[in-house]
């Protein structure tokens, strides 16, 4: 961190639950669906690249999904195959 500067906006680190809240807020705002609904559709692969970039604000939802999904569950599924 530069020592000469003290000015910056505050930062609030949040857990997965906090990010899910942000995902939900954004999904409702841009698509009119819940964050959980978006996550489900995204993980099922029903939203392709064209759908994701087809409406303003949608691609950021997919970006957020990486941070909200349960990594342990995903790894468990993979190792089970």
């Amino acid at each position, binding site marked *: 961190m530069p020592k000469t500067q003290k000015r910056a*906006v505050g930062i609030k*680190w949040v857990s997965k639950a906090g*990010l899910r809240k*942000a995902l939900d807020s954004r999904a409702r705002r841009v698509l009119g669906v819940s964050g959980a609904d978006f996550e489900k559709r995204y993980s099922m692969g029903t939203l392709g690249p064209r759908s994701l970039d*087809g409406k303003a604000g949608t691609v950021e939802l997919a*970006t957020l999904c990486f941070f909200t999904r349960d*990594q342990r569950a995903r790894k468990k599924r993979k190792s089970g195959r």
Partner: protein
Amino acid sequence: MPAKSANQADNDFAYFFRESLSVVTNSYLTAGREGNQRVLLYEPPVKLERKGGDPLYMAVTQTYLISPASGGFKAKTTSYSYELMVKKDGNLQTIAEFHWHPDTTGNLKWPHLHVKGNTAEGELGRRHFPTARVAIEDFLRFLIRDFDVRPRLAYAVWKEILTRNKREFVDSASWLYWKPLI
């Protein structure tokens, strides 16, 4: 120069980003992590005061990765989205979005711009106008210069912050232009 530790690389990157944002807002930035990946975002969008006219709104999503570099650690941007909006009839409507999200859309890996505009060709909002890599400082200066967004700080202060942080970005960026467009 690479940071000495992963934590320092993380803190430095977030600090520059937060300092640049302080030019137009004092809203808290939300941050999250997953492994060595980080996300910084504004959701809901933050209100921006203007010298005249209706206020504008800004949404920002920036992701980055902390990775070992020569003799230390470096934060590398993995995607960005800088969105400008205006409120009409109680709803936020997009004016323009600067995007780079190579991992999310595999067939669209280059940085691009979406502009909401109706032309003789029709609605342009989902066309991808190729751009160079856009730093948050470029976006903020664009808001101040072209949309009369009112900086919160004195001219000499905000100009110094954006210039210094943009220089830092240029010096440390691993790329500035997307060479293989297709």
